[in-house]
């Protein structure tokens, strides 16, 4: 009897080990392409363009190559600055518009809050391709093609529904009793917001803003259609490192690493809260 249980426990422990090991293997497998990209960025072109090798003399020269300026071509600094300002301003605009809206949907809800929320989400169901041609025409007629402004406006519109959706779920977590207590204590709207609501939703605000940053930073479709020249962003800069002449693998890897790093770091930091805002907002 006792040896039987011992066997079962032993078997269980073995299965548990194996499953843990499998999780590690899957994790490493999924991460491998990124690891490989980072590794190739530190190689000489000749090493990157040969059969895969793990050991080599690491060099920073490719990073120097991709960040050096070539007159007439989109440079790293320019693309980074464009992306930085477009992402920053559009995210600020999203938050300015979305915070009051989410407040109206969660804390002092309008009567048809469900319909309004549906409307916001339903705009995400309409594929952007259905709007791109009119947007192009309007942008051209307003002289906005190839400007940062057009991308700022469109990225704001792109992220707004998602931000409203997420922020609403964070606002819903504010206990109503706390707000009522503040009201009884005579706190005005401003007092309720600063002393009760904001401290609770602040981490949620940060996570939402971060998600907007990630989506805007990575956006390529609108950038390539409306803004392929002057206000070009990081994704366009990455693709400009693909050349039809000569080897480019190591350089492309360095450029890709530079373009990916900010957002990956941000995502790692905020992963748990972002998920809660996205998933738990819908299902509670």
């Amino acid at each position, binding site marked *: 009897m006792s040896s039987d249980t011992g066997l079962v426990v032993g078997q269980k422990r073995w299965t*548990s080990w194996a*499953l*843990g090991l499998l*999780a590690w293997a*899957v*994790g490493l497998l999924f*991460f491998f*392409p*990124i690891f*490989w990209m980072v590794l190739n960025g530190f190689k000489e072109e000749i090493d990157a363009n040969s*059969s*895969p090798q793990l050991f080599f003399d690491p060099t920073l020269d490719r990073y120097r190559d991709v960040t050096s300026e070539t007159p007439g071509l989109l440079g790293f600094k320019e693309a980074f600055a464009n992306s930085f300002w477009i992402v920053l301003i559009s995210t600020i605009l999203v938050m300015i*518009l*979305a915070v009051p*809206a989410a*407040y109206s949907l969660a804390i*002092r*809800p*309008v*009567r048809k809050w469900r319909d309004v929320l549906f*409307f916001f*989400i*339903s*705009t995400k*169901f*309409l*594929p952007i*391709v*259905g*709007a*791109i*041609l*009119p*947007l192009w*025409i309007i942008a051209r007629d307003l002289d906005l093609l190839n400007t940062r402004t057009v991308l700022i*406006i*469109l990225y704001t519109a792109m992220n*707004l*529904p998602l931000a409203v959706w997420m922020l609403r779920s964070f606002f*819903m977590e504010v206990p109503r009793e706390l707000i009522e207590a503040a009201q009884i204590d005579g706190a005005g709207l401003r007092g309720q917001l600063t002393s009760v609501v904001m401290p609770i939703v602040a981490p949620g605000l940060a996570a939402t803003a971060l998600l907007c940053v990630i989506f805007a930073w*990575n956006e*390529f*479709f609108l950038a390539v259609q409306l803004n392929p020249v002057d206000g070009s962003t990081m*994704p366009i800069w990455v693709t400009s490192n693909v050349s039809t002449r000569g080897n480019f*693998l190591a350089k*492309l*890897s360095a450029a890709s690493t530079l*373009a990916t790093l900010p957002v*990956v770091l*941000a*995502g*790692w930091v905020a*992963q748990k809260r972002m*998920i*809660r805002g996205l*998933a*738990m907002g*819908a*299902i*509670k």
Partner: protein
Amino acid sequence: MTDTQPDTAPDAGPDTRDEERAEERRHLERREKWIRRLPLLPALLFTIVITQVPFVFSLFYSLTDWKIIPPTPRTFIGFDNFTDLVDNQFFRDAAWVSVVMTASAVLLSLILGTGIALLLDRKFFGQGFVRTLLITPFLVMPVVAGLVWKNQVFSSQYGVINWLLNLVGIDNVEFVTRYPLWSIVIVLVWEWTPFMMLIILAGLQGQPTDVLEAARVDGATNRAIFFQITLPHLKPYLELGTLLGSIYLIQVFDQIEVITGGGPDSSNIPFFVFQRSIGGGWDFGAASAMSIVVVIASIVLANLGLRVLSGLLEGEDPA
């Protein structure tokens, strides 16, 4: 004199005073309503102007014959663009690619994501670290994902897969040229599995532990627990994953652009619209008609999706 008695007469009877109060209350209520609505309006107006109005224009363009380059006057042709689409082999190819790409990428990433979520929903050494590794593909810029897979994983000369195949004696395969659609689907699955995993993981962690305990005490097998308790509990999460995944994946553009650059085997409708218009075709009338087809397909998906969402929001009322 009496028939023009004003409402606000000071010597009015109790009836009028009640009416007066009611009026005042209505006025306050209306004000209160607008105060509640006000914070919502900027976001609502902005969204309507930027995202809804262009669709109306698209609809109008789709009924016209209109080329931008060389500039031709816009002429109204009714539904001719749409009937032309039926005969357009390239468009039919693109529609098929759209269907296969979206369906297979959503399905595969959902299955893989669920499997991985189950693996991660147990205590093991380095759990948080492995989760971090696993979400990274979703954070990577789609353009970068496409380029890395194309040039460093799939490539017949320098790719890792072919290097492994060579080790076991299989000749080089130029994956992207031979299997353009499936190469893209693999990259999409790689990027979306982490997303599905995270949603399912949120579901698994919200499972009532007492029910699981009770089932175990009653001697239920792991398999029975999974199929009879876990899976039904996961249903809304699976639906949410499918919904969000399809919305985004029906619009894939970046990976196609950098992996194959389009072509009958790998252009979906959004990419084909781009090729026929801003990407060099400049036929805005016909391209608009195609984009309307994507919109209609999405509305069908959205209707299914919204039904799911309304189920999710059911019973949740903050008022």
